[in-house]
């Protein structure tokens, strides 16, 4: 077979990378190219430069350095037993592609991952070299996210943190048993220790040194991780418990949930079905409840004996329907924590309510102006001139506030 062209390699190595859900280009320190005279900048929020028809944003050039891999993880298109076509980029090819795309404003930067070839250190060293050349030889100021190989040496991780904005290590699956069954060569303990190591370095870099005011740079965008959902029978309750543990233990910016997707050359060990997209969506909503709405992970699924989130309605609404005694909440008096529990009120709406009510009593139409849908909120609040009356106790409340069944088609 002739050596593949750049275009063929790109097709193979982008296809190989697309099952990783992470796309964020946020959280980096603010920088631009005015001084360096190069190209690239990062500001408060990342930019999604395109969207694929799968609804996912395309922010970074997300590719693998190579899809040759010595690991044999059943869920992965690149596992060593897969018959997928293999390719390998040279370091300079990735550098050039990144710069060519960036100059045309297609991307925010690079998300580089790799199959592990020969040894974790050799592979990690090549990834670090891509980042180093971009930063030092091309004055590239765009976003760089490097996937970190758990077994790689500490020196390489430190260098990775020096050039990258974000590092991530995938926990792969929500339980250790799952990892051992489906990714037999991986060691959950090694993955955890690597995440702990990243947290140590991130915290050390966050403390100003005494001698110079300058802090050692280490991945200012922090670390994130991903787990695959639906490749085994783990219930949502366990998944969320794992997330809560990961957020608490390793100060992650994000936990990504990736609905297990069929892959072109699949393993017999896994279910062959459409990815559970609605379940993935509900998990993100539940994750949001933990991170922004002050819910404890145990509360979210308290009303669900099977430990699974209700696919038909969002988990915040489900919680409210199960805890009607908490409502109605008086928008003119209730504390922030309680307002955040009202279905249909997001953090921004709550902020606006709190700021407005200092100056005037809020009526239902006032609330309507700061939230997406007053119909969803109405049964759960009291406002000037408004009380939901018996609505809250109605058996039909769920039908009133739940979205019509058509959304289920997504699943």
């Amino acid at each position, binding site marked *: 077979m002739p050596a593949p062209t750049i275009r063929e390699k*790109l097709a193979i190595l*982008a*296809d190989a990378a*697309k*099952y990783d859900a992470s796309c964020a280009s946020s959280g980096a320190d603010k920088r*631009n*190219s*005015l001084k*360096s*005279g*190069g*190209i690239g*900048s990062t*500001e408060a929020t990342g930019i*999604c430069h*395109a*969207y*694929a*028809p*799968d*609804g*996912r944003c395309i922010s970074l050039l997300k590719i693998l350095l190579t899809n040759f891999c*010595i690991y*044999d993880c059943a869920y992965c298109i690149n596992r*060593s037993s897969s*018959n997928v076509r293999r390719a390998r980029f040279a370091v300079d090819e990735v550098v050039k592609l990144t710069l*060519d*795309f960036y*100059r*045309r*404003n*297609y991307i925010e930067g690079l998300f580089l991952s790799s199959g592990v070839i020969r040894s974790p250190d050799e592979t990690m060293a090549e990834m670090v070299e891509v980042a180093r050349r971009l930063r030092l030889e091309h*004055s590239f100021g765009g976003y760089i996210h490097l996937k970190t190989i758990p077994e790689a040496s500490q020196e390489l991780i430190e260098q990775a943190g020096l050039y990258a904005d974000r590092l991530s290590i995938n926990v792969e699956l929500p339980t*250790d048993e799952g990892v051992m069954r489906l990714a037999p060569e991986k060691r959950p*303990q090694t993955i*955890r220790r690597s*995440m*702990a190591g990243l947290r140590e370095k991130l915290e050390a870099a966050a403390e100003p040194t005494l001698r110079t005011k300058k802090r050692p740079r280490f991945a200012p965008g922090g670390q994130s991780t991903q787990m695959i959902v639906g490749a085994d029978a783990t219930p949502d309750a366990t998944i969320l418990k794992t997330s809560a543990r990961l*957020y*608490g*233990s390793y100060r992650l910016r994000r936990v990504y949930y990736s*609905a297990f*997707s*069929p892959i072109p*050359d*699949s*393993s*017999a060990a896994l279910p*062959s079905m*459409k*990815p559970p*997209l609605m379940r993935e969506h509900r998990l993100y909503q539940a994750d949001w409840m933990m991170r922004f709405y002050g819910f404890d992970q145990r509360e979210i699924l308290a009303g669900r004996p099977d430990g699974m989130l209700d696919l038909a309605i969002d988990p915040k609404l489900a919680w409210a329907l199960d805890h009607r005694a908490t409502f109605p909440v008086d928008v003119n008096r209730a504390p922030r924590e309680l307002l955040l529990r009202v279905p249909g009120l997001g953090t921004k709406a709550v902020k606006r*309510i709190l*700021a*407005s009510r200092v*100056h005037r009593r*809020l009526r239902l139409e006032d*609330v309507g*102006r*700061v939230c997406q849908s007053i119909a969803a909120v109405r049964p759960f609040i009291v406002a000037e001139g408004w009380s939901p009356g018996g609505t809250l106790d109605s058996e039909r409340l769920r039908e009133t506030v739940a979205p019509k069944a058509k959304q289920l088609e997504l699943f």
Partner: protein
Amino acid sequence: MAIAAASKGTRHTVRLASQTDFAGWRDAARTLALQGVDPSDVSWTIDGNDAVDLFASPTAIANLPPVPATAELRVPRRFVDLAEAVICHSDPARFGFLYRILWRLQREPHLLSVATDPDVRRLEEMEKSVRRDIHKMRAFVRFRRIADEAGERFVAWFEPAHFIVERNAPFFVRRFTGMRWTILTPQATADWDGTNLAIGPGASKADAPAEDAAEELWRTYFRSIFNPARLKVKAMAAEMPKKYWRNLPEASLIPDLIAGAEKSAREMIERMPTMPAPHHQTVQAKHWKNRPEETQTNGADAASIAELRQAAAGCRRCPLWRDATQTVFGEGPENARVVFVGEQPGDQEDIAGKPFVGPAGRLFDAIIEDAGIERATTYVTNAVKHFKFEPRGKRRIHARPNAGEIQACRWWIGHELKLIKPDLVVALGATAAQSLLGKAVPITKMRGQTVTREDGLEVFLTVHPSYLLRLPDDAKAAERGRFLADMLAVKKLMA
């Protein structure tokens, strides 16, 4: 800017220099507000664009009386920020609307905090719309590379919804400093020659280059990164509205990708699993066959602390390993004469994999140093070797190990003591005492005492140093003194 009025109480017309003439608007609005001119009496128009304003009277030229130099007009900083953005909005009514807000602000200084007010809501919506347009321009501008006499240049054609080119241009300067580039739009052109930014008149699509070879690579990427099994067209269209598609090189692929998605996904699902790839066996044999398995021993025949530590790394004697990062084993010389036993590793110990490195550990180090005990000669360990906690957002709250967990972990502490054979063991806190003595003891009552175990081992009892950390400052000093006294007693017992 020029303000014209027929007479007092009649209409005034303000002519602004351009669509985004913020300075002109501000000067006029300031004058009008100080003169108390009602918003409904003002018309706003752009120079040479009179048709926009039907109420403008060409004969109305009498100026307002001058504003006294001492007159002051105060507005919140946030209003200025919002107005600067909203002036870029395409709504022709924006100038008058902004003046109305300014007018209301003089009477209701807190107006902007009332997010539920219809005017404030509209103002915020307009600002959001401008911000979104700015964001989408940053996202969807697509440069095409051309070669000219001075080297390479990047040119883009873009159609914004609002008058944002000038406001947005500095972003492109910050990002593409090292390139020469031009962004053409129907309303204005931004051009960066590597040193200077110039804003020029609008252009047409025909002025932009037709194509760029890199677009074929970009389309390849777009096609390959798409997962047909996850088709979500609405989600895509919500973030990348169709109106932008005509200027996006990748958008031409979208209809075919959508049309073929169902079939590709079905094929992936239906395709039978294949035989492992030919090189798989070679890879397995080379990399994994001779991999040393983690020792599954229980450590009973460990001949050294190092061997014991290795065995404990895989400990499953109780469920605490599930949530912890790692086993945190004891540390110190194997011939130590004294062993300090704490409760369990904390957050930092769990992360570092070493005992006594957190706040309590540092306090402990400082106090034993004061007591003249050299930490390097002592062995420090914990009664329970995995961190037990409850996650709370971005932190972990320490949870007390229960009797079962303490009991399960006595296995390790027993073997540690068997290998080290110290003269004295110091139990720091109730958990350590319970582990060492096999039963719960009232630690505050027995503090400072030495208990001799059945096997002859001397166990000195005191509190855990983390107890000191939780006290208020005045009590802390006194308790630190008591703990130091205990350590001095330990030092004496060691002699």
